């Protein structure tokens, strides 16, 4: 099953989701991503944390990128290699200066400012950038705890 092993970024993602920037669509997207994480070799404890981190990234795009407009597009690619899961999240929203994307001091007790902290806490890599034409791009990487065979690798093609 070589096709599933190719993981260079120019190979098609296992799953690519295009979703409108509507808050109630977050739940189905989260469920698909969490189910895929398990297939791709994440342990149960990681699965929930990854779902949370991606929810936070999407929430930020809806709130800060699209200013709560519900008809913007968001793209999420789910990819993997033998040691990590990769999530590429792209939008067509406002390009903010990358220095604005930072977590606040957690000692300050106030609502908000937690999302970026949660993303960085859960993921092993989180890189925001501007897309060439418009919108933002967030690359997230989560290393797998075990590098043992996953369902996707052991899958029979029958």
């Amino acid at each position, binding site marked *: 099953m070589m096709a599933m092993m190719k993981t260079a970024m120019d190979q098609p993602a296992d799953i690519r989701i295009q979703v409108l920037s509507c808050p109630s669509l977050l739940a189905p997207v989260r469920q698909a991503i969490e*189910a895929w994480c*398990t*297939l791709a*070799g*994440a*342990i149960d404890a990681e699965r929930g944390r990854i779902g949370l981190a991606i929810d936070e990234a999407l929430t930020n795009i809806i709130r800060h990128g699209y200013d709560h407009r519900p008809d913007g597009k968001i793209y999420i690619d789910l990819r993997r290699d033998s040691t990590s899961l990769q999530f590429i999240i792209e939008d067509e929203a406002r390009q903010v200066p990358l220095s604005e994307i930072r977590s606040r001091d957690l000692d300050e007790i106030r609502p908000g400012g937690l999302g970026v902290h949660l993303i960085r806490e859960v993921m092993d890599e989180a890189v925001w950038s501007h897309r060439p034409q418009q919108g933002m791009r967030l690359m997230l990487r989560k290393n797998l705890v*075990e590098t*043992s*065979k*996953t*369902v996707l690798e*052991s*899958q*029979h093609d*029958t």
Partner: protein
Amino acid sequence: MTPEGALPIDVEPAAEAVIVRPHGNVDLSTSPDLRAALQEAVARKQPHTIVDLSQVGYMDSSGVATLVEALQLARRSNGDLILCGLTDRVQSIFQIARLDAIFQIAQTLEDAMGGDT
């Protein structure tokens, strides 16, 4: 749907029977595992092959096809195949497929073992 191996399946001997118990979803990706386990079970040539579906939350037509095939295999070696423990969701595919009359379906594993279908 565990990271290691697609569909975990217990195969247990019992009095005049062998019990096959898959744990997880049975769809195109996992029905080959169920097929292999059922073939092995029927090959033990016990009078009854009991498939305990209580741990199966989802089954599609590839799972149903696998069970139809095992039923035919069991009959050919003069045995029978009994299903038990169907969850509502699994029950519903047998109804939509109108196959609930073709299979012997017991409520519980105890009923299946007692021949009470």
